[in-house]
């Protein structure tokens, strides 16, 4: 078995948003309920259905295209369903399949639902072809039961089922232990100076610039106020080496020295910071490349390519940056990618934009201050075009940024194991 993550609680809610037209409602609902029960029979998990509002696990059927899912289905056959890893909770079924129960015809909803719930609970695919978590559907089995590998996998995540589970209290969400952050911040940086520690295209498409102890957002119309890094991401030090957000896992990784910090939105995952062992310390930059869904880490003249969800063989890395990113300087100070696959590298006061073929476009390098930070001129006027930095930002407190802190629960898995151990 492969573990992809885990929920930080064992009592989960679920909601069935719609059902297939090929089965009577009560039959389909019973199949889904039975799918949950396979897992709750062997692990200390409980599942409670809710009819409205937010649920931890949400099951729905959609067709070739969906407004709410970026992964299209492909009609009857081939791909039957997919699910997100913890703690995201989406479970989607292809509505074009012939969903059935109690017959060898079509696709058995109960078994496929149990498989996808396995993903939603944190299991990856098993290499045992007879396991429920095998990637290929093995067909209807009247006397279906979990394979020992499925049981071992779920128990590795949540432990074995014990008789006391019924009276057990819901565990509290444990707050992460965070190291103290220096109370005396470095001087507030001037965004028009051009130098940056890190850049990141973060959650919700927001672009963050990091310098010293401060971070600010960058938009087409101007700059946001400067905040202390630790005011937005509690427990995170300033003077970062690199920062990268992965839309694939919704994790944000910050690098400094020989440590990595991992956050979901603005909450640090339990167990972090962790030590970087498999890639070099003191990285220069990091980026997520959407075209292959990998994280790239840069140091000196080399890079590592890291797959967050699969074992990565780092023995072939680092590789030379110039062999892949044509025209980019060594030791970039920051890097980030766009959703369309273009990439920007930053170094000193300049940046280089690469096309989808990862070649520097004509006309680059350009000036960071003028083209990113809305500064009128690099030499004569260092005032941001969108206005001066508000004085209130100088004494930023957590209160002033309370709204972005109100986000989802942090995860309890260790996505960085590949680079930390």
């Amino acid at each position, binding site marked *: 078995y492969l573990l992809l993550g885990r929920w930080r609680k064992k009592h989960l809610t679920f909601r069935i948003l719609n059902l297939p037209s090929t089965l009577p409602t009560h039959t389909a609902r019973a199949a889904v309920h039975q799918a949950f029960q396979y897992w709750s029979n062997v692990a200390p998990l409980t599942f409670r259905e809710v009819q409205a509002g937010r649920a931890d696990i949400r099951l729905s059927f959609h067709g070739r295209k969906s407004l709410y899912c970026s992964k299209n289905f492909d009609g009857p056959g*081939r*791909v039957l369903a997919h699910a997100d890893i913890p703690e995201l909770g989406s479970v989607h079924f292809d509505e074009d399949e012939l969903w059935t129960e109690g017959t060898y015809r079509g696709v058995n909803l109960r078994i496929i639902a149990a498989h996808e719930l396995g993903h939603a609970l944190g299991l*990856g*695919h098993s*290499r045992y*072809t007879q396991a429920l978590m095998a*990637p*290929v559907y093995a067909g209807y089995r009247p006397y279906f039961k979990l394979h020992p590998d499925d049981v071992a996998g779920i128990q590795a995540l949540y432990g074995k089922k014990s008789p006391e589970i019924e009276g057990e209290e819901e565990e509290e969400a444990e707050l992460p232990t965070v190291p103290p952050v220096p109370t005396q911040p470095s001087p507030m940086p001037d965004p028009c100076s051009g130098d940056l520690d890190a850049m990141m295209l973060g959650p919700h498409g927001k672009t963050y610039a990091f310098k010293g102890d401060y971070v600010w957002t960058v938009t087409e119309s101007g700059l946001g106020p400067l905040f202390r890094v630790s005011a937005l991401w509690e427990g995170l030090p300033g003077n970062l080496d690199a920062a990268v957000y992965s839309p694939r896992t919704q994790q944000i990784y910050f690098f400094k020295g020989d440590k990595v910090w991992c956050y979901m939105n603005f909450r640090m995952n339990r167990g972090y910071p962790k030590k970087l062992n498999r890639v070099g310390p003191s990285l220069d930059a990091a980026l997520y490349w959407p075209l292959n869904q990998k994280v790239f880490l840069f140091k000196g003249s080399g890079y590592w390519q890291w797959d967050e969800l*699969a074992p990565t063989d780092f023995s072939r890395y680092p590789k030379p940056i110039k*062999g892949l990113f044509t025209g980019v300087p060594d030791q970039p100070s920051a890097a980030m990618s766009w959703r369309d696959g273009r990439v920007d590298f930053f170094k000193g006061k300049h940046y280089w934009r690469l096309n989808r073929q990862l070649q520097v476009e004509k006309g680059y390098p350009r000036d960071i201050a003028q083209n990113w930070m809305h500064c009128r001129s690099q030499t004569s006027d260092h005032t941001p075009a969108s206005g001066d930095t508000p004085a209130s930002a100088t004494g930023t407190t957590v209160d002033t940024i309370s709204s972005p802190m109100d986000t989802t629960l942090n995860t309890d898995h260790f996505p960085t194991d590949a680079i930390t151990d």
Partner: protein
Amino acid sequence: PALGPAEKEAVDYLLQYGYLEKPLEGSDFFRPEDIMEALSTFQEASELPVSGQLDGATRVRMRQPRCGLEDPFNQKTLK
């Protein structure tokens, strides 16, 4: 070398499910040895005879209904 429709379909499958990674450096084409290794990994993970060739059993296996998530298998994990 140009791939036939069956080979292209197989390469697309291997790419989609994580057995084959698009080469980042140099050519856009896959090296035959990379495709063979990916096929071997797929065959081994599918409990098929490991030949590294796109044989009938491998094609049939690739057409079977399955989950949309990637597979984590490579030579290292199988070892």
